């Protein structure tokens, strides 16, 4: 918690600001939502670390996916992720987004979240307790510090692969690609 070190602020204000003002857009799927209220209210109070729930993805920079991801929810998650402004971080809660968890053999849930959208951090646990969430947040701080929380850059660099995976799962998507694919990039460039 190096929030009050002025030198760090002067050196890299953007990074520090991103660390201590994580406005969270969270997707309450499955059992995840039960853990969020204690995190943001009086008992554990995430606001003291600058974590604040916000209404629309346009305003946030942290994207919490709490619980198993069914196919219908994945569409909404991809849509919301693409609507968030650029430096954005994603955190997967619980074991289901990691490898499918106890729904490992279910036909309706996806197994590896990071094959469809980039994920910066995972918080293991079949619904992690608020303390685990805070550990995750502090770990995210260190990732941001070290510049490793670059999910949005990976999404941009490997967008074709991500898009291909999404279309393999859903067939034709109802919204245009976020970044122009190579073909469009060529004829746009000259």
């Amino acid at each position: 918690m190096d929030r009050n070190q002025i030198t760090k602020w002067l050196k890299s204000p953007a990074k520090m600001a991103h660390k201590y003002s994580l406005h969270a857009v969270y997707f309450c799927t499955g059992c995840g939502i039960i853990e969020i209220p204690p995190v943001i209210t009086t008992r554990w109070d995430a606001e003291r670390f600058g974590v604040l729930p916000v209404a629309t993805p346009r305003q946030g920079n942290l994207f919490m996916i709490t619980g198993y991801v069914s196919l219908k929810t994945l569409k909404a998650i991809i849509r919301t992720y693409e609507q968030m402004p650029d430096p954005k971080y994603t955190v997967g809660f619980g074991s289901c987004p990691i490898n499918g968890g106890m729904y490992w053999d279910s036909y309706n849930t996806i197994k590896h979240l990071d094959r469809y959208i980039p994920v910066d951090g995972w918080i293991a646990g079949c619904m992690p307790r608020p303390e685990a969430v805070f550990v995750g947040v502090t770990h995210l701080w260190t990732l941001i510090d070290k510049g490793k929380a670059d999910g949005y850059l990976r999404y941009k660099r490997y967008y074709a692969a991500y898009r291909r995976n999404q279309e393999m799962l859903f067939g034709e998507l109802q919204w245009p690609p976020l970044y122009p694919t190579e073909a469009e990039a060529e004829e746009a460039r000259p």
Partner: protein
Amino acid sequence: MVTRIIQLLLSPLIALAVGVLFLGLSRKIIARIHRRYGPPLYQPVIDVIRMMSQRSISHGSLFELGVVLALAGSLVTVLFIPLGGTVICRQNPLAHGVLCPLSSSGGLLVVMYLMLFGPLGLALGAGDSANPNASIGVSRKLLLALAYEVPFLLVILAVMSHYRTISITEIVARQQESGWGVLSVPLSAVAAFLILPAMLGIRPFDLVSAPQEIASGPLAEYGGSYLALLAVQKGVHLFVVIALYVDLFLGGGVNLATFLVKMLVVFVAAEMIAAVLPRIRIESAVRFCWKWPTALALLQMAITVLSKSV
């Protein structure tokens, strides 16, 4: 001439700083009332820096112009409000520790008109964002504005006819000589305090940017640097309204320091009430604003007009 330019630049900056500080203070007060620590006072500054570094989206030139219009309007309004103007301010507005740059070149009427730039700019910008949540938010904002304008105008007219002038510096000076506005036009002061949350857009009346119902209303599509500017605008608007309240009813500040203390008192009082009240619906907000505050303001107006004419 140089001091004049410094003053012209100083008051908007003070408004910015104090406004943003008040935003942080409000979050701290709400947290303390919830018996939790809450973010540090400078949390809004961090939020603004973070948002400025994000790359937002835009729906069109009016979408951007709306934000600019809103913030510019609020900043210009600050110039016309004397901050800490004393009796000296009338003779020598450039005296030390005193800040009333343009308040002599346009009275209360101009301030009231300039105060409509904020909501109008945001309304136009949100309208262009082609999101129904924004349109619903804007229609609520304008309706709420219509609701609180009736008592607010009554209050201002009562003050104007009480002091027989439309320039704020005159009112402030008169109050410093013969007692605060709260004592001479008490009912108007109470009525104004009743509609203060509506004008500030805080809890009982924050139905305009209600995150749960309409995805933060007009701000639904705003992100990144626009959201930062709008947060700053909310702070400056906060500052303007409370400064106006202090100038009209609490006799303005002998100098800048006392002025800011009075503003702090008013703000903390309003915030305390806001922290514990639930959000009310737009119909009942309109009906509330046209019932109690208007009745009080009308009563006070009648008293002032009768006492003046007799």
